[in-house]
């Protein structure tokens, strides 16, 4: 099932949650909506699910207008951050719910329902919990049951709202992997919302980066990391060193110091973005920037150093391989291997 979202606008009072959003999701994709809180990602997901309606714009599933249908008629599986399990029902009944409420004409027989629930509980590897109640399960188990419940109605689309947000780090990692595998198995078009970049980059085929109700960039995880389209994406995804620079006549200046790097089209007050590990350390005089090492921490394969840049003593944090050990007090030069300059100081 393909999903097409066109010119969606959603306003809550004076707050614009979604500002002219366009998005196409291909059949069988696993897409991540990534952004800080208040970026509109959950609003967009709820509109696709039919839990909210946009003020303007269109949503279609396989070319068919979805806004004409209510949530129950869209055949969408929705997984909530806090599970939203029915606490008075056993795990089995929770999963069976979507099958039991079907109109009599299409409802499966009791035996068929039992078989289907069993199959789903096997799929989420929790068949042994069928008779427990939600309050007796751990967070990770609850979320897997919520997923099984959503899949029971054979949804054409699966939507997950911060599915792992309420879980602790270790369980979250496990479930991430597991969701990836599950998607490869059932291949239903899926969108999940997250504010965790690692989660988005690791799980999704494509990532949609959102900020302030707008889509900043759509691309593969590699794309959004290596070629951020905007200053926001560069700072939101991955760790970056950000320096305010001024560009005039094609020359980039940090304060009064000209940096011998390419402006890449930016003009006027701009920002220079460099990934922490993209700073080449060399002897004084051989790089665009110079500074003094203040503090060094080593862990694993890297050493992380705080460098005070000459001039205004701005502190930057860099990651360097350990083959050239740094010590506090060293005077060094820094040369960005890869960098981006975005116009504007904001």
């Amino acid at each position: 099932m393909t999903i097409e979202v066109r010119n969606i606008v959603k306003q809550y009072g004076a707050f614009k949650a979604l500002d002219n959003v366009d998005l196409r999701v291909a059949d069988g994709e696993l897409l991540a909506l990534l952004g800080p809180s208040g970026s509109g990602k959950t609003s967009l997901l709820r509109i696709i699910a039919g839990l909210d309606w946009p003020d303007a714009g269109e949503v279609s599933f396989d070319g068919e207008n979805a806004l004409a249908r209510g949530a129950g008629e869209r055949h969408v599986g929705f997984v909530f951050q806090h599970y939203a399990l029915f606490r008075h029902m056993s795990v089995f009944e929770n999963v069976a719910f979507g099958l039991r409420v079907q109109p009599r004409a299409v409802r499966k027989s009791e035996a068929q329902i039992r078989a289907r629930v069993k199959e789903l509980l096997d799929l989420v590897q929790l068949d042994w919990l069928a008779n427990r109640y939600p309050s007796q399960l751990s967070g990770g188990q609850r979320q897997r049951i919520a997923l099984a419940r959503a899949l029971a109605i054979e949804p054409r689309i699966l939507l997950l709202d911060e599915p792992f947000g309420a879980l602790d780090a270790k369980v979250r990692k496990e479930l991430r992997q597991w969701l990836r595998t599950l998607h490869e198995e059932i291949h239903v078009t899926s969108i999940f919302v997250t504010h965790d970049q690692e989660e988005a980059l690791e799980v999704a085929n494509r990532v949609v980066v959102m900020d302030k109700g707008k889509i900043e960039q759509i691309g593969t995880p590699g794309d959004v990391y290596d070629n951020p389209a905007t200053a926001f994406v560069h700072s939101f995804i991955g760790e970056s060193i950000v320096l305010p620079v001024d560009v005039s006549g094609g020359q980039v200046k940090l304060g009064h110091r000209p940096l011998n790097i390419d402006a890449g089209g930016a003009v006027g007050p701009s920002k220079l973005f460099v990934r922490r590990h993209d700073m080449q350390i060399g002897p004084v005089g051989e790089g665009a920037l110079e500074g003094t090492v203040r503090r060094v921490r080593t862990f694993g394969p890297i050493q992380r150093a705080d460098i005070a840049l000459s001039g205004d003593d701005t502190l930057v944090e860099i990651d360097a391989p350990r083959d050239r050990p740094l010590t506090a007090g060293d005077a060094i030069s820094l040369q960005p291997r890869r960098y981006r300059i975005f116009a504007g100081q904001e």
Partner: protein
Amino acid sequence: MSAAPKRSALPGFGLSMGLTLTWLSLLILIPLAGLFVKTADLSLSQFLDTVTSNRTLHALRISFGLAFAAAVVNLVAGLIIVWALVRYRFPGRRLFDAIVDIPFALPTAVAGIALTTLFAQNGWLGAPLASLGIKVAFTPLGIFLAMVFIGIPFVVRTVQPVLIDLDVEIEEAAACLGASRWQTITRVIIPSLTPAILTGFALAFARAVGEYGSVIFIAGNLPNVSEIAPLLIVIRLSEFRYADATAIAVVMLVFSFLIIFLLNRLQRWAQTRALAVS
């Protein structure tokens, strides 16, 4: 050989249990025991005669039957009121919320007189109803009405906090799974509220059974027609037939206790099912 003293993370059991028992004894158990002692003045046959006389039986039927009916009505109306107060935002919501408590605070006689005036044959509501051939004041219907009036806050106040805690997300989940609105209400919302609903029902019922002040004004108090058991007790007292009065009281007490105990068990059962502490 001395056993190590038992230690608990929650000390003070002895003290609090002692205070509880003293308090309950002073306020509830001793007065109630007095009831039984006084009733024992009667022989068994006298006791049976008193409590099985037509007038007593009718009064008990009126009190328990109408209290039950009023509690049922309050259950339905209370749920609707709670729903409106919790789920919607409208001007005057806080005012309505406060109005719900008025039957708690209003002197019952005031309520009774107000209802009687309103539903008397020449009252604002009584007159149009009378033209339809429906008499409210001075009939069992009037008693029922007074019981509905005083019982409504019990259902609202017990269910309200539970509904507030009930996440809207579970309704959304049900909707996404294809449940109709009706299915969502009957299969998801009501079962989640059941323990609170039962408690509210039990409280409204208990209050209506014991209600005296508001009912006697509107009831008309005709023996064998619209006489409630608490009034019959007062009548027996004024006739100095103290043992007869306590006999009726004992029957009311035992019945009320059984019903409330049963409702409590039911409520506990619903609760453990909901929380599943199996």
